[in-house]
């Protein structure tokens, strides 16, 4: 068994629209803030893992170093759909576990601008099949997954909508969230439909932002002081195993369940031990599915879980107290590390108005469609 790995510094920029900055500048801001948070210099960093999706071929990690310090360290650029940031973090974790580095930096960054709907590509003859032969748009893909949950368990659109009410309400306590505006159930349901059953307020926005984390070996973490350190109790990454309809209706559940099983086993704990969860609510329908996939409740009980406010701040297992992707925002490559930033803030007791009191263990989950699932379990170190 190799040594433990710790998060000793972390940061995120506010998520939003920053057209005046380029992707390297955004990433550089998060990188410097994470180094300062850890109390180290870039000279101490032995490797950089950079997650970015839309400029995956454009050496974003190196461009960040051109902004903050070209020390000649190895840089790996990762792209893994919406699991991009979490994958960069995990690669840094693996590098340290392998004994190759004592200190590594992971940065996730994305500049999406006012890009609208995602997905819906493909087509062989220079003709997009979107709207002619079904839909590949993300709201529709996750809409159909939600309708499948309705079919199996009788879940209602109101129950999905309650997820949006919760996450938008949570975001009012997060100064880094893209939106910080509460809304009522009626407002969610009356917002225009994007793809049934998801209305506008049940879809995450596009946006810009960055997040970063400094990871350290146990030896280095002790040297820096364990006071604010957070232990990475588990890191798991899965791709989609074969399932019946996965190739036409991406199955986000099977790989999340497999990933959660591995993560709980590594961490030696279960869903009942989690003090908070940041999960991949790209659409309100997705959050309901993931309550069951992560074992926060039994199969078919997710609708009841949101009805009974179990996942609200102050509930038994608060989910997405940051506002989630729905309201905090979802700059794709940044999201995975932003979720780790959020959990870390709570475990340190530094989450301000939204602090989950006494939090000792938290779980961060993301899904990249196509598909990649990453789960990290973090635990208070001291």
């Amino acid at each position, binding site marked *: 068994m190799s040594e433990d790995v710790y998060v000793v510094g972390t940061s995120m920029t506010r998520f939003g629209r920053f057209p005046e900055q380029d992707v390297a500048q955004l990433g550089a801001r998060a990188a410097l803030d994470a180094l300062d948070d850890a109390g180290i210099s870039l000279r101490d960093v032995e490797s950089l893992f950079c997650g970015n999706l839309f400029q995956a071929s454009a050496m974003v990690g190196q461009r960040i170093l051109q902004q903050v310090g070209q020390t000649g360290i190895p840089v790996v650029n990762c792209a893994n759909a919406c699991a991009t940031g979490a994958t960069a973090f995990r690669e840094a974790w693996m590098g340290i576990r392998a004994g190759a580095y004592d200190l590594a930096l992971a940065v996730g960054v994305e500049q999406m601008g006012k890009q*609208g*709907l995602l997905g*819906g590509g493909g*087509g*062989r*003859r*220079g*003709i*997009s*099949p*979107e*709207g*002619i*032969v*079904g*839909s590949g*748009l993300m*709201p*529709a*893909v996750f*809409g*159909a*997954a939600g*309708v*499948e949950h309705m*079919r199996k368990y009788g879940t209602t659109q109101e129950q999905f909508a309650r997820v949006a009410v919760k996450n938008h309400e949570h975001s009012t306590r997060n100064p880094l969230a893209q939106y910080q505006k509460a809304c009522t159930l009626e407002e969610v349901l009356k917002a*225009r*439909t*994007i*793809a*049934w*059953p*998801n209305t506008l307020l049940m879809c995450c926005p596009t946006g810009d932002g960055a997040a970063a984390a400094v990871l350290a070996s146990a030896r280095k973490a002790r040297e820096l002081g364990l006071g604010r350190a957070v232990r990475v109790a588990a890191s798991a990454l899965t791709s989609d195993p*074969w399932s*019946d*309809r996965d*190739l*036409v*209706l991406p199955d986000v559940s099977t790989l999340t369940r497999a990933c959660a099983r591995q993560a709980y086993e590594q961490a030696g704990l279960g869903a009942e031990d989690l003090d908070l969860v940041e999960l991949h609510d790209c659409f309100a329908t997705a959050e309901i599915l993931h309550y069951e996939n992560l074992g926060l409740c039994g199969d078919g009980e997710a609708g009841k879980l949101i009805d009974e406010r179990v996942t609200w701040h102050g509930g038994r297992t608060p989910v997405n107290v940051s506002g989630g992707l729905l309201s905090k925002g979802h700059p794709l490559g940044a999201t995975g590390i932003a979720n780790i930033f959020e959990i870390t803030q709570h475990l340190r007791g530094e989450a301000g108005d939204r602090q989950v009191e006494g939090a000792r263990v938290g779980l961060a989950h993301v899904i990249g469609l196509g598909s990649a699932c990453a789960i990290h379990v973090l635990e208070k170190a001291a």
Partner: protein
Amino acid sequence: MPDTPPGPRPIFDFLKLPVDGEPYLEGSRCGRCSATYLGPRLACSRCLARDDFESVALSRTGRLHTFSIVHQSFPGIPTPYVSAIVDLDGGGTVKANLLGVEPDPAQLPFDLPVELTTFVAPRKDADGNEVIAFGFRPRQAEKGA
């Protein structure tokens, strides 16, 4: 590569348009585990068997498994439309538009029997050829049954 004569062509290679028969979707079926795919595969992603695929004409009929109703799409694409996931009778799952129905969740019962239909796509391909697309519509024969 031989030049393909100009004229209508299917939107996907797995849509077959025989001159003397009804259009159908062509699948590959794994000889070991029966997993069914649209289009060819080198190996079965379920059981890993290689070189053991049978080309099959998938059934023209099936049932509505799940759907979403798209109200906002890319510019120029008319909305709303129903993006349906259809389980074909005898195996295979396909995504396509569900045509001839109200785009209203209350009018879309799960397991609704549907059948394959083809139509001329509203957009031409990159070479200006007419493109034939497919969708599903409620199965007439079972209405009222």
